[in-house]
């Protein structure tokens, strides 16, 4: 009987502990703490709602301003095109052409003089196109006018640079009619056939007899517009030998 009562008592106490202590652990908060936290969170929510309302108003104002600016930019652009007498697509094409020429000229600038000689026709074409562009009313817009002028200066420098080749690869007689005389006569070599001894003397390692040059030889083209004493002398020797040779 006593043990039954004792067991019952322990069971009741254990039950009470389980019922009461467990929720206390889970809550870990008094009503005052709850109230305080509730107050601060409510204030935070109200504050955030006010900030959101204000920022929404700001965004609306900015959107209106952005729309108005779009309209102003369009009106200004239309007026500019009307002044220039061109359509938007013509204006865009001009802009694209100029940009692509700038890119191409930059590529040409990176080439060697010898390579540039092979692009002479293209450079001439760019020069002509730039001259046409400079006459366009679009070039009256300072930033376009300046870009065209800068490009013209770069192209002019490209034209000046390759005054002549510094080497020449011999072709075949059948196809290219290459002999020292004809090579010296070429516009991008000396543009003067009488300067052929310069090529001969500049390539004595290869050319033993000036009447014999072989296809695929890469000949140095020495600088100068006149024959040196040595070149003249070697040329005279050659002419004398030729004249003395039995016919």
């Amino acid at each position, binding site marked *: 009987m*006593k043990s039954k009562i004792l067991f019952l008592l322990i069971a009741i106490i254990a039950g009470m502990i389980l019922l009461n202590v467990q929720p206390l652990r889970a809550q870990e908060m008094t009503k005052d703490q709850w109230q305080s936290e509730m107050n601060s969170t409510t204030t935070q929510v109200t504050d955030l709602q006010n900030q959101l309302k204000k920022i929404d108003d700001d965004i609306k104002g*900015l959107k209106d301003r*952005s729309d108005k600016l779009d309209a102003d930019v369009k009106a200004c652009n239309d007026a500019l095109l009307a002044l220039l007498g061109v359509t938007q697509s013509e204006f865009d094409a001009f802009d694209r052409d100029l940009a692509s020429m700038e890119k191409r000229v930059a590529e040409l600038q990176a080439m060697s003089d010898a390579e540039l000689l092979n692009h002479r026709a293209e450079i001439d074409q760019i020069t002509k196109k730039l001259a046409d562009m400079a006459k366009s009313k679009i070039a009256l817009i300072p930033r376009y006018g300046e870009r065209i002028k800068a490009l013209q200066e770069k192209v002019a420098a490209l034209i000046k640079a390759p005054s002549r080749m510094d080497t020449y690869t011999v072709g075949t007689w059948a196809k290219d009619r290459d002999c020292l005389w004809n090579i010296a006569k070429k516009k991008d070599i000396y543009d003067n056939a009488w300067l052929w001894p310069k090529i001969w003397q500049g390539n004595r390692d290869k050319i033993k007899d000036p009447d014999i040059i072989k296809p695929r030889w890469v000949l140095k083209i020495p600088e100068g517009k006149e024959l040196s004493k040595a070149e003249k002398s070697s040329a005279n020797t050659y002419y004398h030998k030729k004249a003395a040779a039995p016919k």
Partner: protein
Amino acid sequence: MVKNMKSFIAAAVLVGAGMVAGCSSGPSAEQLAQLENMKQQAKSLSSQLQDKQRQKGDLEKQIAAKNGKLQQCQADQDAVKKALGK
């Protein structure tokens, strides 16, 4: 012995009652849920506010770019008018 036992039971009941009374000073489950909801709302509003601030920043940048475009266009117009003698 039985008397002692009764006293012990009475004491245990009092202790238990005291514990129950102590527990009742905490917030109810409903109040806790209310606080949790409020915290969630604050979190959501804070996130919305961040998005709006980003949106506002983007709009300000766009407006600055458009202002630049407009000024450029007006300067172009003036230069062309001057060159054409208008």
